[in-house]
């Protein structure tokens, strides 16, 4: 008889039925993927970043393929918090999954405004994007210096009603130092990695592949970097970590969990295979079955 194995994880008091989430910006608010995936099966949906006002994003081309990965420079196009609350959060109410809203802004005040607007909404956690490499103001400016990260985390924590996840950038000298700064300022959890800044040149047209010149690299090509950074961050702080970077299946997810992540997010691979999130959950269950693991906690951070 098949034994029921426990895949639930708890982060900052919020319990997820399994550790598989969607990486912000790769899944919209789930509307585009409900045709492919049973959204009720996901641990959480992490929404595309939302700001206090609509953002038009960057000119096209915004995406380019690279070896085993892709570059994007969408520029955080979003409809703004008013539409997001009315449309996206309304849509997500239909589903039995946790909702994590990714928040972006140009100034600390922008972030705080969105955080306050969400305080009475059906949102389980907030993920603060201080790591998008594709916008000129805000975002990554807060995520590359420990004092700036400390400051914005502290300001958001003062106002936030839901637990706060700080999403960290890999484009730093020491991920451990950034993780410690966020923890010291009161962050409830961390998510990493955001994309790695990259560039591609079309040698036939002698032009940059992206209108923005640089973009964020994601996909399987970045997975080893992400696993290493999750491991380093997990050893630097006590707060839980949500790991991501090129996860394509259950085995990839297990690797992140063993490196110390409490949960994982599927990102760019949603574009390659729209069923990746569900297949990753099945893959984790199959792995637990294979190795007779009763509770997923047994493998989290098991590789020291």
């Amino acid at each position, binding site marked *: 008889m098949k034994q029921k194995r426990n895949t639930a994880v708890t982060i900052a008091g919020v319990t997820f039925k399994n550790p598989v989430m969607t990486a912000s*910006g*790769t*899944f*919209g608010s789930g509307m*585009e*993927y409900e*045709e*492919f995936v049973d959204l009720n099966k996901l641990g959480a949906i992490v929404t*595309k970043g939302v700001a206090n006002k*609509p*953002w*038009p*994003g960057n000119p*096209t*081309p*915004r*995406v*380019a*393929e690279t*070896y*085993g*990965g*892709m570059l*994007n420079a*969408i520029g955080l*196009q979003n*409809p*703004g918090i008013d*539409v997001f609350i009315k449309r996206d959060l309304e849509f997500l109410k239909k589903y039995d999954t946790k909702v994590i809203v990714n928040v972006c802004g140009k100034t600390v005040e922008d972030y705080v405004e969105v955080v306050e607007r969400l305080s009475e909404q059906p949102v389980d956690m907030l993920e603060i994007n201080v790591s998008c490499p594709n916008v000129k103001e805000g975002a990554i400016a807060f995520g590359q210096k420990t004092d700036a990260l400390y400051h914005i985390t502290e300001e958001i924590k003062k106002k936030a009603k839901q637990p706060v996840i700080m999403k960290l950038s890999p484009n730093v000298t020491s991920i451990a130092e950034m993780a410690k700064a966020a923890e010291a300022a009161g962050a409830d959890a961390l998510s990493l990695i955001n994309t790695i800044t990259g560039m591609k040149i079309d040698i036939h047209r002698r032009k940059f592949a992206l209108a923005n010149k640089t973009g964020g690299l994601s*996909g*399987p090509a970045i997975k080893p970097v992400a696993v290493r950074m999750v491991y380093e961050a997990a050893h630097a702080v006590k707060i839980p970590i949500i790991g991501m970077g090129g996860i394509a299946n259950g085995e990839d997810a297990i690797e992140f969990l063993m490196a110390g992540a409490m949960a994982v997010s599927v990102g*760019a691979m*949603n*574009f*390659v*295979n*729209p*069923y990746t999130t569900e297949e990753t959950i099945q893959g984790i269950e199959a792995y637990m079955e294979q190795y007779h693991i009763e509770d997923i906690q047994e493998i989290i951070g098991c590789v020291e």
Partner: protein
Amino acid sequence: MEEKNSMEKKRKETAVVYSQKETAGGIFDMWISTSLAKNAHPGQFISIYPKNEATLLPRPISICEVDERKERLRIVYRVAGQGTKEFSGYKQGDNISVLGILGNGFPLDAAEGKTVFLMGGGIGIPPMLQLAKELAMVNQKNGRDNSNIKIILGYRSELFLHEDLKQYGEVYIATEDGSTGSKGTVMNAIEDNHLKGDVIFSCGPMPMLRAIKEYAAENGMTAYLSLEERMACGVGACLGCVCKTKEVDHHSFVHNARVCTDGPVYPAEEVDI
């Protein structure tokens, strides 16, 4: 207007290559067997996934012809990079991964009782075939001939699909080198042949679409443009493939619409190209 496709769920499935040949230099003509053929509409597209995992993203390719009964789709594509190079090596019986049906397609009802220009430039020509076929079917149903279907094709030099298209309307050709038909572009072919019409359905390179938009506005014609943009997901989530819109878009709430989902076909006056 037929709305059957709009309600059909998108899905990724395994298709089988039925046949493939090189139809002109670097242009490949492939029929694939797939249940997606049951709901394909002219101007829509499918995404094909390369098998090579180094080339991750699906390649959006327009539907050239549909055989609904045999459940086959025809695609005609140019080898432009690693993905399409891989596709060009596929043989009969090979399995391929496809996502579809994607995009909105051309609004056939806009051509009802009108003289319509089907304008294709280069690798924008393939979607004109199924479109012409379905417009001709409407004529047949109404006991009309196909003299209202003016098919205007622009090539660099080497021709493809022109013989297929001749079955469904009057074909006019322009070549950049003047080797066949008018020398120049589709716009030269309109002028040389003194063509007049009411509606334009078009697909091709951006300079051609800009010229068509201007021409339609000057001549009081209604034009629909099929746009192309670099895509990742193909289903409207990643916001990679946007085009500028004149009005604030209903989904994005900024002046951007998603080519993969809201397009690829737009009324010319609605897009800022």
